[in-house]
């Protein structure tokens, strides 16, 4: 186990593409860090630099006290779970789990013990002698996890490991990964573009945009106090309403902000509310209904209990503490 430090880390690809820049993260021993952001924001690049699969063009990666910029992937004491699982198709599950140990000259009995232990933890015992192609997606996913844990590495790196699974299995595996990590207390970096997955798994979230960090914090911190309009619209579903302050006049204390943000679930129906909304569409989600509409020319969404009354226009209010204020130009939080 080890802490991981990314010190002013940057990556410019040979073609001149800047994928990552100025990334500073201190990951504590045993912490579960989730890198989240839209497609192409540099999550994989960052993870692969930690793994040693991508060269580091700026800054430093430290695992424990050791600078690993020029250390081979095999010698970084990390294990990685790939999006496509990357199981060796010509080897049995057992051989897949044992391969990393065999290469390091681990004694046979010890390999046997660790493989069986991993198989038990992940409940893949019955498949040990099958080839990966004879497994379902979820089982392959477990084998990929098993390959990581038999090595007992200092850190796990996950690159969107659940994105090839169907929605239901994804939720189940998400929980399992979380439990497994709690149990093993292994430092983990997990990449995903699914904000829900990020929220549920992370000890701390790192929100990336265009290769730069927008915000680092616990899921609740990030949810409650998004540092920018980008984070505000990316974290939380349905996304936060971002309105031009001029479209909602007469709000006290918003004069210095260009953009105000309010989450759909923080809006309430109020006869004397400051916002008047024209309803355009309603989405019934069962427990909730999402009402989409416009106010002062801007799109707005409100989440209401499914038994609340509807009309062509709604008067909306909110509590002052639920208001988020952002600078119009920079998008940064100003309150």
């Amino acid at each position: 186990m080890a802490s991981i430090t990314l010190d002013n880390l940057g990556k410019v690809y040979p073609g001149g593409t800047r994928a990552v820049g100025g990334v500073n993260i201190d990951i504590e021993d045993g912490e579960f860090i989730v890198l989240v952001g839209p497609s192409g924001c540099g999550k994989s690049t960052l993870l692969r630099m930690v793994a040693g699969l991508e060269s580091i063009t700026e800054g430093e990666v430290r695992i424990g006290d050791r600078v690993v910029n020029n250390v081979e992937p095999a010698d970084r004491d990390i294990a990685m779970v790939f999006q496509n699982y990357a199981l060796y198709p010509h080897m049995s599950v057992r051989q897949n789990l044992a391969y990393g140990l065999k290469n390091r000259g681990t004694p046979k009995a010890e390999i046997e013990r660790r493989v069986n232990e991993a198989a038990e933890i992940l409940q893949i015992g019955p498949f040990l002698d099958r080839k990966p192609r004879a497994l379902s997606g979820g089982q392959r996913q477990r084998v990929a996890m098993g390959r990581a844990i038999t090595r007992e590495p200092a850190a796990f790196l996950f690159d969107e490991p659940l994105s090839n699974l169907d929605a239901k299995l994804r939720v189940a595996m998400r929980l399992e990964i979380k439990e497994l990590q709690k149990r093993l207390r292994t430092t983990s970096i997990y990449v995903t573009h699914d904000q829900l997955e990020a929220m549920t798994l992370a000890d701390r979230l790192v929100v990336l945009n265009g290769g730069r960090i927008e915000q680092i914090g616990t899921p609740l911190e990030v949810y409650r106090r998004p540092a920018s309009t980008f984070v505000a619209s990316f974290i939380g579903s349905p996304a936060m309403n971002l309105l031009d302050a001029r479209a909602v006049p007469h709000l006290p204390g918003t004069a210095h902000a260009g953009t105000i943000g309010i989450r759909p679930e923080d809006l309430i129906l109020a006869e004397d509310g400051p916002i008047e909304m024209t309803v355009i569409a309603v989405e019934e989600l069962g427990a909730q209904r999402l009402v989409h509409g416009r106010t002062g020319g801007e799109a707005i969404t409100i989440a209401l209990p499914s038994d609340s009354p509807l009309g062509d226009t709604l008067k909306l209010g909110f509590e002052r503490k639920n208001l988020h204020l952002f600078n119009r130009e920079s998008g940064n939080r100003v309150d």
Partner: protein
Amino acid sequence: MKRTIFNNQLLPWLLLAPQLAITFIFFLWPAGQAVKQSFLSQDAFGINTTFVGLRNFTALLDSAEYLNSLKVTAVFAVSVTLVSMGVALLLAVSVDRMLKSSRVYTTLLVWPYAVAPAVAGILWWFIFNPTVGIMPYMLDMIGYDWNHVSSKSDAMILVVIASAWKQISYNFLFFVAGLQAIPASLREAAAIDGAGPVRRFFDITFPLLSPTTFFLLVVNIVYAMFETFAVIDSTTEGGPAQATNIMVYKVYFDGFVGQNMGSSAAQSVVLMLIVIALTIIQFRWVEKKVEY
């Protein structure tokens, strides 16, 4: 796929006719003739033809020259296959690593394939010519006296190189395609699992290439056995002392030069059986056994 229904019963046959005619005239009919010939014997003047049953075949098995030809063919086919596939794999692996700059390299490597075997044969014959060639000159400098006109092993090496050369580009393309089809993440996973480049190659890359390798193995053996006639003819003509007289060349030599039609036909029937066997192995094995 879209299925077309022909109302006219004749049309499908008309459309097939040219292909069927070509197959019949250039393949089935000569093959039938060869089979018929192989049971017949002509006298020295080609006037009387008699039915001799399997005697042409049994004569082959008693002929030291034919048994030698079998041995030569085996050595030749195995060497050509190993050399052409080995070199191609080496080149393909290095290109696969370079990836980007590989396009020029790839184009250059395809050229040999566009050169007719006879031209290739003459080219190599010149390069290795004991009096004017560059290779004997260079070999002489390191103290090797090259002479494929008198040395059996030199002659074999020459025909192997001349034959393998052309096949390298073909194999190379298949190997590159095969390598590109292996997901990069597998090699990355192996790298993280502590396998160095050589180990990665033997543990991951090579096993995953096995369908390509097996396919090429059969293609190259077939090539070496049946399509190298022109190379042999333009370099050694089967010599010296039968050292490079492979089966397909012997068919030609015995039939057209030696005028022994019965024996030549029997030999080509044997060759036909070998092609059929290889084809069956190809289909059976490639589809069933070589998978992972």
